[in-house]
C-alpha cells in the first residue's frame, strides 16, 4: 500500500486496485471483482460475467485494459506489471517522470483510483431520492452490503443520451403525483421530506442568496427570450402531510380515500400518496375518516400542514408542469415523447413518405428571473411507414444480409406505437419470435400477440411471420428493492418510425426541403409562440386549468438586456486583425501565412486511375496557393491505383507506408461518397499504421477554378493542422493555462459502449488528445482520470512545468447529472493532482449544453431577428443554483439563434463572470476547421470530433503516436 495515498472516502481503501500494476493483467482483476461487486467489473476483458452480450455481428469488444495500457505506454506511463507499488519500487515513467522525485513516482498508479461508489446512481435513480442527501460514506456501506453486482452507476454512462421521457402521459387529473420518478429530478427534497415526520410548525421557505454571475464587459443589447413570465395569483401553496391509520400501503387506495374528501380539500389537489399540495389553507390539522373497501375497516386520515410555500416554489414546479401538460391536451395537442404536436397541421412530404408535425416543447421552470414558461418550437418528423414496411424495403434491397442490415438501420430508432401514445427506442430485434408467440399479461395470463391486439385494440395483425422489436426500459426499482429489468416486445407492423431516415439525411436536396420546413426565422418562431399563447388564452378550459393553481401566463415573451462581448483579435504569423461583424475570417487566413506551418516534404497521393485528372489538378493548384499560406509543399509520391476497391486502397497504402518510413501524410482521392472506403482508410491510417491522412472526394475537386481554389485552400489548411501546424491564434491573458474539452459519443450499435473524447491544450493553440472506450456500467471518471494524468505529463514534457490553471469544458451532461459531475466526478479528477508533488492547480469546470430550448431574439428592431455573435446573457433565464450563462458565439445563417448554455460547476481559480464569458468566447474562435466562431469552445468540438471518429468510424482507439496532432479534423 502506498502510504501517501489518502483514501478520499472512508472504507474505500480495501478495494483499491493499483492501476499501474493491475491494468495489463487479468489475474488480479478477477479476484478484486469478487470483493468489489459494484465497481469495475465492466471494464475487464471478456470472460467477466458482467459483460453484456456482444451485439449481433458488430462492434468488436476490445478489452479496455489493453487499450488503456497502450495509451499509457505512449504518454510515458509504465504499464509493465509490477508486484508492488510504493517508494521502493523502480521508477515509474521512463522519460517523462524523470523530473519527478521518487516520493511521487508511485502515485500516478494509485491516484487513478478505480471503483469508487457512484453517488450519481442514486441521484438519478428512480425510487430512492431520499438517499441522495445521505453522505457518501453511508452510501458506500449500503452498496458494500449489496452483494450481487448491481449495475449502479449506469446512469452515469448514459450521459447525453436521450433522457427517458418524463412520464409524459400521466393520466391523472388534479395532479395525483403517482410516479415519483417524474418528480424527483426536480425536487429531490420531495420524497426525502416525506420520510421524516412532519414538522408541526408552519415554516416559511427562505429565499436563497443569488449567486454572483453577472458580467459587465461588452455593449448592452436588447433581447427577447423564449420565456413567458408566469404570474402567480395565489398567495401561497400549502403543503400537508397525510397519514393514514391504520396504515394503508396501496397508493391507489390512498388516492381514492383522499378523493372522497373533496368537500374538505377542494377539487384542486396534488397528492403523491404522502404529501398533499393545495392552493387553499386548511386548519393546522384536519382529521377525516374513510372506509377501506377491501375489508370495511375504518381508516382515519390526518392532514397536517407542514409548510406554506411561495407559489413559485421549486416544490410546486413538478405539478405545475403536469397542469401545463393538461393544458396542452385541452388544446388537442398530441404528446409524443416529451413534446406536444399538432398532427392536424401536418406538412406531408409524400416523396419521402414522411410527415412533419409542428409543435412545442414547453415546460415551467423557475430561473433567476422567477417563474417562467420556457417554450420552444419543435417539429416531429414521423414516417408514414411502419417498421414492417421499412423492413420489407430493406429486404427488397439486400436479401443476403437482411438481418444485419435491419439491425444496423433500426437499432436506436424511436418508434411510436399505433395503439397507444408511447414512444420506444428499438434496442434489439427478436428474430426468433413472431406475433404467434405469447407473453404473460399483468394478470398472469398467457396470451398471443395476435389475440392481445385483437382483443384490446380490435387490431388484426396482417403479417404473422414478422419478428418482434425489443425495447429495454431503464431498470426500475420495485418497492421491495429489486431491480426490475423488463423487456418490451413490439410489433413492427404496429410501430411507426420517427426521425429522418438515414437515406434522406444523405440526400442534400431532401434535407433542404426539410430544413425549409423546420428552421424558423426568429420572427416566425416568435409568431408561433404567440399563437400558442393566444390559443391558451382563448380556450376557456385551458386558462381555467392554469388558474386553478393561480397561474396566469403573460401575453408575450419576456424582454431583457443582454451584452455583446468585445470582438477578438486573431493572430496570424505576420499580422493580426480584429474580427468583423459576422465573425468569419476565411478571406484573411487564405491571404496570409498561417501562424505556424509544417513543411510537407514527404507525402503520398493515392488515386484511382480514372481520377488521374483530378489528382493532377489538385496538386497543381495546391502548389500555386501554398505560398501565400506560408506552407512549403513538395511533390507527392504519386500512387495510382488500378481500381477503386477498398482492398486495393488498403493494400497499396500499407505497402507504401511500409517501404517509405518518413511519410508525413497520406492523401487519398476517392470517387463517390463511400463510407466504407473512408472508414477503411481511416482505420488503417489512424490505428494500424499511424500517419495523418486526408481523404478527398473526387467530386469536390471538379468544377470551376474559383471553386477549386477555395476547396484546395481548405484542404491545405486542414493538412497543415493534421501535421501539427497552427492556423491562427488568439490572445488569452491567462498564463500557464491548460484548457480541456471532453465529450462522450454513444452508439447503440456499440452495445451501450461509449467513447470518451478528451482534448487538452499544451499551450494556447496546440492540443493533445486522448480517447477512452467506455464499457457499460463503467464510470466515466475512471477514463477521465487516466486522460488528465496523461495530459498533465505531456504538458510538463512540452512546457517543463505544470499548468497553474486548468479549465475544463465538459459536454454531454444533462441537468440531472450536474450534481453528479460536481460532487463526484470533479473530486475524482482532482485526485489526479496527487500524482505530482505539491501540485494543487486552480481548476474551473464548465458543463457545456448545446441541446437546450432557450432561444434569444434580437429586439433591437420592431421585427425580431438574430442577435449578433458574441451575445451573452447571464441573468433572467439562468439557473438559480449555479453560476451559468448563455453565449451565442456563432453567426446564425439560418433559423433561430441557438445559444449554448455554460454552467460553471467548479471555480477554484476564482474566475470572474467576465473572465469566464470572455475566455469561453475566445475559445469559440479556435476551431481550425472553420474560419469563424463556432457554437462551442474549440476543445469541446475537437473532443466531439475525436469521439465521433473513434466510435463511429474506427471502432477503436486511434494510435497514440498521433496524440499531438489534430489528425481527426
Amino acid at each position: 500500500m502506498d502510504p501517501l495515498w489518502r483514501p478520499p472516502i472512508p472504507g474505500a481503501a480495501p478495494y483499491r486496485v493499483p492501476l499501474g500494476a493491475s491494468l495489463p493483467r487479468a489475474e488480479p482483476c478477477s479476484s478484486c471483482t469478487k470483493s468489489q461487486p459494484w465497481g469495475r467489473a465492466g471494464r475487464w476483458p471478456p470472460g467477466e460475467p458482467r459483460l453484456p452480450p456482444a451485439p449481433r455481428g458488430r462492434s468488436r469488444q476490445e478489452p479496455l485494459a489493453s487499450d488503456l495500457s497502450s495509451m499509457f505506454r505512449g504518454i510515458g506511463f509504465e504499464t509493465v506489471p509490477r508486484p508492488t507499488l510504493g517508494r521502493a519500487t523502480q521508477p515509474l515513467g521512463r522519460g517523462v517522470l524523470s523530473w519527478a522525485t521518487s516520493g511521487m513516482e508511485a502515485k500516478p498508479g494509485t491516484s487513478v483510483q478505480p471503483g469508487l461508489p457512484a453517488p450519481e446512481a442514486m441521484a438519478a435513480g428512480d425510487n430512492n431520492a431520499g438517499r441522495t442527501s445521505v453522505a457518501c460514506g453511508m452510501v458506500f456501506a449500503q452498496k458494500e452490503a449489496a452483494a450481487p453486482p448491481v449495475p449502479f452507476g449506469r446512469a452515469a454512462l448514459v450521459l447525453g443520451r436521450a433522457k427517458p421521457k418524463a412520464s409524459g402521459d400521466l393520466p391523472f387529473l388534479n395532479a395525483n403525483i403517482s410516479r415519483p420518478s417524474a418528480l424527483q429530478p426536480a425536487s429531490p427534497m420531495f420524497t426525502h421530506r416525506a420520510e421524516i415526520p412532519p414538522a408541526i410548525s408552519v415554516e416559511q421557505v427562505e429565499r436563497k442568496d443569488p449567486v454572483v454571475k453577472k458580467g459587465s464587459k461588452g455593449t448592452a443589447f436588447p433581447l427577447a427570450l423564449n420565456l413567458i413570465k408566469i404570474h402567480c395569483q395565489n398567495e401561497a401553496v400549502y403543503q400537508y402531510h397525510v397519514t393514514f391509520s391504520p396504515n394503508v400501503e396501496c397508493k391507489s387506495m390512498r388516492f381514492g380515500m383522499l378523493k372522497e374528501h373533496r368537500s374538505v380539500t377542494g377539487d384542486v389537489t396534488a397528492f403523491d400518496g404522502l404529501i398533499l399540495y393545495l392552493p387553499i389553507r386548511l386548519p393546522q390539522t384536519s382529521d377525516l375518516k374513510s372506509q377501506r373497501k377491501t375489508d370495511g375497516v375504518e381508516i382515519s386520515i390526518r392532514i397536517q400542514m407542514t409548510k406554506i410555500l411561495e407559489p413559485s416554489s421549486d416544490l410546486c414546479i413538478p405539478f405545475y408542469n403536469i397542469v401545463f401538460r393538461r393544458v396542452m391536451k385541452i388544446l388537442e395537442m398530441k404528446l409524443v415523447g416529451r413534446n406536444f404536436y399538432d398532427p392536424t397541421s401536418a406538412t406531408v412530404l409524400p416523396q419521402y413518405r414522411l410527415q412533419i408535425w409542428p409543435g412545442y416543447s414547453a415546460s415551467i421552470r423557475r430561473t433567476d428571473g422567477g417563474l417562467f414558461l420556457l417554450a420552444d418550437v419543435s417539429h416531429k418528423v414521423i414516417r408514414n411507414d411502419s417498421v414492417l414496411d421499412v423492413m420489407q424495403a430493406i429486404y427488397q434491397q439486400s436479401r443476403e444480409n437482411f438481418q444485419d442490415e435491419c439491425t444496423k438501420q433500426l437499432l436506436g430508432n424511436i418508434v411510436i406505437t399505433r395503439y397507444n401514445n408511447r414512444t420506444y427506442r428499438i434496442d434489439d430485434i427478436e428474430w426468433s419470435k413472431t406475433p404467434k408467440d405469447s407473453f404473460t399479461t399483468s394478470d398472469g395470463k398467457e396470451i398471443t400477440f395476435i389475440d392481445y391486439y385483437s382483443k384490446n385494440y380490435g387490431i388484426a395483425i396482417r403479417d404473422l411471420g414478422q419478428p418482434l422489436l425489443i425495447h429495454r426500459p431503464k431498470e426500475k426499482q420495485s418497492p421491495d428493492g429489486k431491480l426490475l429489468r423488463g423487456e418490451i416486445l413490439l410489433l413492427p407492423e404496429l410501430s411507426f418510425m420517427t426521425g429522418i431516415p438515414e437515406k434522406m439525411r444523405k440526400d442534400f436536396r431532401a434535407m433542404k426541403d426539410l430544413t425549409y420546413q423546420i428552421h424558423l426565422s426568429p420572427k416566425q418562431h416568435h409568431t408561433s409562440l404567440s399563437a400558442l399563447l393566444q390559443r391558451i388564452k382563448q380556450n376557456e378550459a385551458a386558462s381555467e386549468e392554469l388558474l386553478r393553481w393561480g397561474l396566469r401566463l403573460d401575453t408575450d415573451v419576456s424582454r431583457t438586456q443582454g451584452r455583446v462581448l468585445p470582438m477578438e483579435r486573431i493572430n496570424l504569423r505576420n499580422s493580426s486583425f480584429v474580427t468583423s461583424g459576422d465573425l468569419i475570417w476565411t478571406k484573411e487566413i487564405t491571404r496570409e501565412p498561417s501562424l505556424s506551418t509544417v513543411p510537407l516534404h514527404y507525402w503520398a497521393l493515392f488515386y484511382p486511375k480514372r481520377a488521374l485528372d483530378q489528382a493532377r489538378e489538385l496538386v497543381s493548384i495546391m502548389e500555386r496557393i501554398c505560398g501565400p499560406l506560408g506552407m512549403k509543399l513538395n511533390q507527392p509520391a504519386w500512387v495510382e491505383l488500378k481500381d477503386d476497391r477498398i482492398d486495393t486502397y488498403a493494400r497499396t497504402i500499407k505497402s507504401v507506408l511500409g517501404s517509405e518510413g518518413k511519410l508525413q501524410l497520406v492523401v487519398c482521392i476517392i470517387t463517390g461518397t463511400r463510407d466504407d472506403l473512408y472508414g477503411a482508410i481511416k482505420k488503417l491510417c489512424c490505428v494500424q499504421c499511424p500517419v495523418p491522412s486526408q481523404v478527398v472526394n473526387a467530386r469536390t475537386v471538379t468544377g470551376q477554378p474559383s471553386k477549386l481554389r477555395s476547396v484546395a485552400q481548405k484542404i491545405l489548411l486542414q493538412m497543415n493542422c493534421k501535421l501539427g501546424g497552427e492556423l491562427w491564434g488568439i490572445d488569452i491573458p491567462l498564463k500557464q493555462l491548460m484548457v480541456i474539452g471532453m465529450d462522450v459519443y454513444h452508439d447503440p450499435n456499440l452495445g451501450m459502449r461509449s467513447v470518451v473524447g478528451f482534448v487538452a491544450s499544451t499551450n494556447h493553440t496546440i492540443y493533445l488528445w486522448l480517447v477512452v472506450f467506455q464499457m457499460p456500467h463503467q464510470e466515466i471518471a475512471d477514463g477521465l482520470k487516466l486522460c488528465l494524468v496523461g495530459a498533465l505529463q505531456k504538458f510538463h514534457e512540452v512546457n517543463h512545468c505544470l499548468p497553474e490553471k486548468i479549465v475544463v469544458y465538459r459536454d454531454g451532461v444533462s441537468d440531472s447529472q450536474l450534481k453528479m459531475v460536481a460532487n463526484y466526478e470533479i473530486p475524482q479528477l482532482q485526485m489526479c493532482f496527487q500524482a505530482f508533488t505539491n501540485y494543487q492547480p486552480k481548476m474551473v469546470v464548465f458543463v457545456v449544453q448545446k441541446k437546450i430550448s432557450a432561444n434569444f431574439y434580437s429586439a433591437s428592431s420592431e421585427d425580431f431577428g438574430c442577435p449578433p455573435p458574441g451575445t451573452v446573457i447571464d441573468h433572467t433565464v439562468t439557473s438559480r443554483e449555479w453560476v451559468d450563462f448563455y453565449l451565442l458565439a456563432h453567426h446564425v445563417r439560418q433559423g433561430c439563434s441557438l445559444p449554448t448554455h455554460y454552467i460553471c460547476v467548479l471555480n477554484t481559480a476564482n474566475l470572474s463572470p467576465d473572465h469566464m464569458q470572455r475566455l469561453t468566447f475566445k475559445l469559440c474562435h479556435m476551431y481550425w476547421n472553420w474560419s469563424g466562431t463556432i457554437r462551442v469552445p474549440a476543445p469541446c468540438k475537437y473532443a466531439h470530433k475525436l469521439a465521433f471518429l473513434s466510435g463511429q468510424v474506427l471502432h477503436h482507439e486511434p494510435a497514440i503516436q498521433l496524440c499531438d496532432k489534430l489528425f481527426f479534423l
Partner: protein
Amino acid sequence: MVDANLAKGECTGTIKFTPPLYKQRYQFIKDLVNKYKPKKVADLGCADCSLLWMLKFCKCIEVLAGLDICENVMKEKMHRLSPLPGDYLQPSERTLTVTLYHGSVAQKDPCMLGFDLITCIELIEHLEATELEKFPEVVFGFMAPAMVVISTPNSEFNPLLPGVTLFRHPDHKFEWDQAQFQSWALDAAGCYDYTVEFTGLGAPPPGAEDVGFCTQISVFRRKYPNTGEPINLEKPTENSYRTIFKAVYPSLKDEKYLQNAVVSEVINTAQIITRRLLDSFNSVYKEHSNGLVEMKPDFQLPRYFMRHSKNPSLAEGEKLADDRNMETYVSGNAVYIPLIKIFSIPKVNKLCGTFENLSKLITGKVALSNDGSAVVISTEHEEKENE
C-alpha cells in the same frame, strides 16, 4: 359507476371473479357490439370513460357518446378518447366522433336521439327516486334507441360478498333483488314497445344457485323499426346537456386525409416502378458492358431503354401516343408512369374508387406529364447515386 372498487371488493374474500366483474361487464357490451354492429353507441353514466375507451376500438362504431352527471370524473381521463398520433398516420376508413356530455339521465337532449345502442352499466342504482321515475321515459320514450342494456347489482347476492353491509357502495340509493329488477324492466319494456331479456354476470357459487348472478343485466330491443325521423320531433327539446369534450377522428372520408393517402400511395408506387426499371436497366447494362469497370461518363438511359423496350418502333409518332397510355416510358431525365397503370394497383384503386377521382386528388400534388396522363419521376437523383 364504482366498478373498480366494487370489483376489488368482490375479488377478496370467498368469492372471486376472474376477470374482475367490471371487466366482464365491459366485455359483455363489447361482445354485444361486435355481434350487432351498431353505428351509434351511447354510454349513460360513463364515469371515467373506460367503456367508451374500449368501444372506440370497435370498427363498426361511428358515433360514440358519453353522459355523466359528474363532470370531474369524466374529465379525469377523457383525453384517452382523443385520437392518437398513430391515427393521423394511417387514418381509418370509418369516421368516428366521440363526444362527452355533462348532464342528467332524467333530462332530455336531442343529442341523444337516433342511437343504435345505449348502455347503462351500474347506473340506475345511483339515481334518486325522482330521477329513476323519469328514467324510462327519457331513455325508452325519448332517446328510443334500437337497443338498451341496463345492469345493476343483485341484492340477493350481497350476503355472499364480504364487507357488504347495506349496499355495495355508499352512493347506491337502492339495490334490487331479481324480482324487483325484472318487474321494473318488464314494465318499462311494455310501456315503450320494447322486448326485454334477462341475463347476468358473476355466477353464484355452488349451493347458492338461486341467488342468481352477482350483476343482473337486462337487454331491451325496440319492437318498432327505426322510422328514420325521431318520433319526438314535434316537441323539440332544448339542449339540457353541456358538451365537455369532442374528438373527431381523422378518417379517409375527410378529403384532406384521403388526398394524403392517395398521393403517398401514388408516389410510392411510381417510385417502385421507376426503381425496378432502373435496376433492370442496370443489370442489362452490366451484362452488355462485359464487366468493364470503367463507368460511362454520361448516363444514356433513354436511348438505351428505347433500344431494349418491347416496342422497337417507339419513336414513331402515332404509336407513341398509344404506348403512353399503357406503358411506362422514359424521356429525358424522367420516367413516365401512366396514371392508368397506377390506378390498376389495388390499394390505389380502393382508395380512389374512380379514375377521375384519382386524377382530381393528385392534381397539383404529384408531378404529371403535360397532358396529365402520367406521373413523372425524375431520374436525376438516381443517376447521381449510380455515378
